[in-house]
């Protein structure tokens, strides 16, 4: 039963990966690189040795966190796209706090940065939630605009109040050692951060939150049919606000993870690096299933890491990884449309469902 339900999604994912591989080989051939060499370089760069595998897994964490935020928000019917802004806000607040946590013992300092990240993202998302709930501003619009604001604020922070004293570069001082999130000592280069435990833990938390709690039930009811929820005494506004804020919290934690479990121990203005939007693609590719999103987050992270490896070893244009990620996103959307069309043909019980947002196509019922 479960297998039957999961099968189409697995097929879609496999199809997307194959199609992306084809596109990649075309690009590689066009730039004069033998695909076989590229494959081995890609593998070597992503999972070929434990150091690189550590990097890949560690990079999957922020992607998954954003994806989980998206899943929670869409389940409540709130399609906001403020993840980049919330990642930045979370990272910035975590930085501001972290820079002053040098005196704290390690675990406390790490916890402080993580909590600050969550708070920063949640507060930033809170603006969107407040505008939506009290002013009726569409969350998708306000969050998109707040992304732009966040980018500018981050640029100002690293050139102003948070700028480091060591150099004139637009970046902060190095984070105090105690605030850096620890990594597995066994992996060479310390590339595998302990925060990979967040992958299963957070995914399971979201699954349980949605399927096993009264709160999550209210979210799903509000997202499924807001009027019916309201008529049964569930407040869809409260649910919507909570969902947006929670998704911001996840994105903010992703921001903190990017910085404190990342490669460079400081904040510069480009640290978000597309994680906010790629996280959405991760969720979509996973059909909004939290567990499946672990896998797709790793796929996306390996595209990123592998792209860098290709550039380093084969001198492939650095934009290849971005082209690939873009191709995957387009393919995912295409697959979603196709799946939606197939679905739209059979259960015509609710004609309106077919017109529902593309992003919800393939939504899994937990």
């Amino acid at each position: 039963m479960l297998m039957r339900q999961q099968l189409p999604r697995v097929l879609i994912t496999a199809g997307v990966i194959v199609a992306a591989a084809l596109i990649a080989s075309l690009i590689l051939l066009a730039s004069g690189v033998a695909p076989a060499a590229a494959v081995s370089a890609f593998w070597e760069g992503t999972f070929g040795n434990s150091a690189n595998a550590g990097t890949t897994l560690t990079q999957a964490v922020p992607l998954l966190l954003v994806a989980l935020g998206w899943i929670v928000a869409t389940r409540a019917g709130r399609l906001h796209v403020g993840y980049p802004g919330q990642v930045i806000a979370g990272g910035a607040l975590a930085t501001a706090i972290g820079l002053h946590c040098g005196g704290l013992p390690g675990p406390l300092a790490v916890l402080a940065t993580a909590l600050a990240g969550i708070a920063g993202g949640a507060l930033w998302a809170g603006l969107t939630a407040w505008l939506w709930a009290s002013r009726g501003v569409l969350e998708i619009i306000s969050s998109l605009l707040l992304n732009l604001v966040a980018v500018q604020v981050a640029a100002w922070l690293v050139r102003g109040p948070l700028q480091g004293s060591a150099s004139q570069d637009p970046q902060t001082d190095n984070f105090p050692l105690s605030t850096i999130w620890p990594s597995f000592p066994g992996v060479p280069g310390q590339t595998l951060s302990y925060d990979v435990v967040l992958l299963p833990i957070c995914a399971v938390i979201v699954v349980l939150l949605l399927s096993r709690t009264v709160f999550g039930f209210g979210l799903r009811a509000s997202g499924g049919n807001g009027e019916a929820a309201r008529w049964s005494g569930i407040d869809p506004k409260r649910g919507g606000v909570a969902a947006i804020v929670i998704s911001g919290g996840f994105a903010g934690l992703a921001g903190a993870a990017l910085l404190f479990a990342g490669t460079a121990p400081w904040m510069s203005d480009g640290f978000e690096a597309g994680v906010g939007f790629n996280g959405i693609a991760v969720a979509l590719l996973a059909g909004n299933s939290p567990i499946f999103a672990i896998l797709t987050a790793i796929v996306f992270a390996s595209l990123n890491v592998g792209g860098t490896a290709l550039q380093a070893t084969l001198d492939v244009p650095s934009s290849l990884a971005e082209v690939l990620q873009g191709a995957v996103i387009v393919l995912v959307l295409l697959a979603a449309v196709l799946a939606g069309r197939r679905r739209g043909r059979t259960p015509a019980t609710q004609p309106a469902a077919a017109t529902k947002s593309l992003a919800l196509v393939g939504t899994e019922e937990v």
Partner: protein
Amino acid sequence: MSNRTDSTVVRPPALRLRGVTKRFGAFTANDRVDLDINRGEIHALLGENGAGKTTLMRIVTGLYQPDEGEMRLDDETTRFRKPEHALRAGIGMVHQHFTLVPTLTELQNLAMRPARFPWRNATADVRRRSEQIAATTGLRIDPDRLVADASIGERQRLEIVKLLCRGARILIFDEPSAALSPGEWDELAALMRKLAAEGHAIVLISHKLTEVFAVADRFTVLRAGAVVGTGLVADVTSDELVTMMVGGLVTERPARAPIEPGPPVLSIRGLAVARDPLDPKSPPALSGIDLEVRAGEILGIAGVAGSGQNELVEAVMGIRPALSGRIELDGEPFEDRTPRRFYESGGALIPEDRHHVAIVSGMTLWENVTMRALRRPPLSRRGILNVSAARAETRRLMTEFDIRADTEKTPIGRLSGGNQQKAVLAREFSDHPALLIAVQPVRGLDVRATDFVYRQLSEHRARGGAVLLISMDLDEIIAMSDRIAVLAHGRITGVVDADDATRTRIGALMTSAEDTPCS
């Protein structure tokens, strides 16, 4: 199976189905169905809830693809891959759940169709068409009103006009009368006869046998997806039809024992509600409403659709703000109304617009049935759901209320219309409310389920519960109520004891306020 009684007809049937089978997974919704629909006839398609009527007609209109069997239209084998193709071939269906866009006006809804010239503005054309239809059939629409502001009855009228506008020759009505007042039904019946006389073929799906006997020429009965009988309506009795449908007769309901009503459970004093909830200055939808529903009493509200029934329910529920007035629920003042407090104070509601406000189609049957119970002990504790208990409870209610579904995990949107309604009933009755507001509670239910609901209402009354029964079906109101309040143009024009209630008396009250419309 199909015995061609009408041997004088030389023309092939307008629509002929042979061996049509439709499966959903392991479940067979239509089992080798043969069906002939002739021009000029009204063909009643009968069967209990979940028998497969809607599914069969969805195949005919191209919404579903049959797994087996063939379909012949004017003796030519056809197959529709899309509803659009069926429409173009002249087959149109008024669905059980409407297919209108609420944020557009009625005219815009009519104009929304695949146009031959996409760049041409179809509005003027459609306006003319709809005026023609109004002239020939009496089906009048309000072209510039938003569909969102139209009542269910009005929306349905629009659906019919929409099909006629598109030139449908085979018209399928899926439970069309569920939302209509008796007067509107008479109009629709006359319209169907007129259309049939003009050579249209009409399929009528209905659970009301009086309607079938009033208009239909032939009938076909489905049971568990298969045809169990077909013939001329003139040759059968109502009991025979019921036996064919449910495999037995529905026993007579016992006469209700008179009950001395107890204290008031719901009391409404001087309630006034604006038509536009955001604009208190808009003309009132309700004014000066005084009502009292006592324990052990069924108070019926009679009135034509759009008289203020929706506003009354919404104001009591706290969905819609009231301009003035006091409401008491179960002996306590019920101020600061919200749906949540309504349920907490012992209320329950079977709403009129099931799809829009009562169910979440994407969620499972068990989640819908326990939508409220799930949020308090024993089905949840400290915010954690007890899923297995909730599912067990749903399975119990599925047996008690005869909800037909594969499992309790089926998305409720996949259930047949009647079974969705039963799920809502199960939820509301299992709450053991002090006050039950039931709006058209038997909408879409088959004879057996209708009988079941009436019994439940009576039992609820006998237990000392109060029922506010709102219906456009006068017979239902007269049969079920202890007292009847008549609502017309937002005012209560009279309250009649059931013993003195006659159709004429209530009909007179329903129209009496027309001279003095409240403004």
